[in-house]
């Protein structure tokens, strides 16, 4: 075969390859890439440089830069199938939300090879399987940690067995007639549903499964799966529910560690986009079904690019970590502070109405403005701009994100270091 045709054959192969292939240096500057890679990068890059891998993905996977920076071996695999959650909501229309998988290999001191693959369909199927798996394992696993009981439509315990005593530490005979909600731990630090909220959904769907920490009579904590199934009366007033409480022991240190790895941003330890997106989708369901308020605050550091340019990325990274510390400390129970992009953060506030969200945003703004970071070039201070929106204003996850973003933009153009809470300019007094 002549050289010309074999080169053309190679080009055809690369043009048609259904996986994105990229070669770049450790600063992200792309030397070679195939069309499939560009198909994904171009829409994600926005106004940033699409010819730099890290810039193009800055908004959706800011961690890639620090993963490469912290990889010390001369060659080797930096990440394998690292997931990039492009969409935070449940996807548009009937489409599944887009998720990309990125693998990075270092092949020399300043050479990286990256692949990008669309794994949206796989991720969607995994999620479905996990739900089914949880459901079946609840039914099929060993019976030792179980406490089956029957409750009335309002939650009052109709009958319980000695298993209930073993599991919760409360005597099963004494609790009969009392409301199960009074016996279960009522504070829901990670945004779990209360029993009454769970009963509303179970009455409609026939069943509902909820997981969370529970406290035994002696104060001991255990991870509890709580399954509620309609047993009599078809979920109408006067009917009954069967409840199964299950002590799930595999929630050990390794699982907790894994959970942290999967849900936290690599650099700052804030929640990552993936966790934020999943929680937002879950809370959206709670909002829709239970009319529980849900608010979103997005914030973006002012002139952060100048910080990186004049102080360098390591100082910029330190600043991001300090801001995460300060803001996380101000989160209410159930609130999530997440890094959404380079210097953009999101605060998800279940059970917070608009006024409460605005008040918290103002506290976060003050806390960030008060933060001082020492650097070799002197003290560094930054401010941030905030956009607040609440689900009642829009009804959809996409709409909520868009509204908060729009207000963030308004806060920026209004002079920065401020909170914008509404889409209408406030008329001057008088």
């Amino acid at each position, binding site marked *: 075969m002549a050289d010309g045709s074999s*080169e053309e054959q190679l080009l*055809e192969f690369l043009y048609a390859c259904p996986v994105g292939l990229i070669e770049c240096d450790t600063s992200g500057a792309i030397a070679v890439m195939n069309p499939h890679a*560009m198909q994904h990068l171009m829409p994600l890059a926005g106004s940033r440089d699409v010819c730099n891998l890290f810039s193009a993905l800055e908004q959706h996977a800011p961690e890639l830069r620090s993963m490469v920076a912290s990889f010390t071996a001369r060659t080797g695999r930096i990440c394998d199938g690292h997931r990039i959650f492009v969409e935070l909501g449940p996807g548009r229309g009937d489409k599944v939300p887009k998720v990309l998988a990125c693998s990075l290999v270092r092949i020399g001191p300043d050479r990286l090879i990256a692949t990008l693959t669309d794994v949206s369909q796989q991720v969607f199927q995994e999620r479905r399987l996990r739900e089914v798996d949880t459901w079946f394992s609840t039914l099929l696993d060993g019976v030792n940690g179980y406490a089956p009981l029957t409750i009335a439509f309002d939650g009052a315990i109709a009958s319980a067995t000695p298993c209930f005593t073993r599991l919760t530490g409360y005597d099963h005979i004494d609790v009969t007639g009392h409301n199960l909600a009074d016996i279960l731990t009522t504070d829901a630090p990670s945004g779990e549903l209360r029993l009454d909220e769970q009963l509303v959904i179970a009455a409609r769907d026939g069943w509902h499964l909820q997981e969370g920490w529970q406290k035994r009579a002696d104060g001991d904590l255990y991870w509890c799966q709580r399954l509620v199934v309609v047993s009599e009366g078809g979920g109408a007033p006067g009917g009954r529910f069967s409840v199964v409480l299950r002590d799930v022991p595999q929630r050990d240190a390794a699982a907790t560690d894994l959970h942290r790895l999967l849900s936290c941003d690599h650099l700052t330890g804030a929640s990552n986009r993936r966790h934020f997106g999943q929680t937002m989708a879950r809370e959206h369901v709670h909002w829709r079904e239970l009319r529980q308020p849900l608010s979103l605050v997005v914030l973006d550091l002012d002139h952060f690019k100048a910080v990186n340019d004049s102080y360098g990325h390591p100082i910029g990274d330190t600043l991001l970590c300090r801001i995460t510390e300060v803001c996380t400390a101000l989160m209410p129970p159930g609130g999530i502070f997440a890094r959404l992009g380079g210097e953009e953060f999101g605060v998800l506030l279940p059970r917070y109405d608009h006024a409460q969200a605005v008040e918290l945003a103002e506290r976060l703004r003050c806390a960030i403005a008060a933060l001082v970071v020492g650097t070799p070039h002197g003290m560094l201070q930054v401010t941030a701009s905030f956009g607040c929106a609440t689900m009642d204003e829009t009804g959809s996850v996409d709409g909520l994100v868009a509204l908060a973003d729009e207000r963030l933009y308004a806060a920026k153009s209004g002079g920065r270091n401020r909170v914008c809470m509404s889409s209408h300019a406030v008329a001057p007094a008088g």
Partner: protein
Amino acid sequence: MSFETINVRDLDGMEPSECDALPFGVVGFKADTVVETYNATEARQSGLDPATVIGVPFFDIIAQCMNNFMVAQRFEDEPELDDIVPYVLTLRMRPTKVRLRLLATPEIARRYLLIER
């Protein structure tokens, strides 16, 4: 007839040799994106032989980089289309800044994509 002024009718009535002589890339394809025109300028830019490109679904096989809402989806959604968009292609696997002109009109079956380096 420049990149900015040429229209679908001009392109559709052109002899292949005239089309080849244009200083910008021209790709003509049907509603199903199967390529019918691939001029010499575009063949030089991409390094592909027109014979292997013609008859192939363009956005699936040849130009996956444009198979997104910014280009391919617009041909799906907008029957009447005339827009110039700055873009970055991967000609011969090198990121290359270009200007694209997206052209379609309901009266003419063939749609056109012009590529100016």
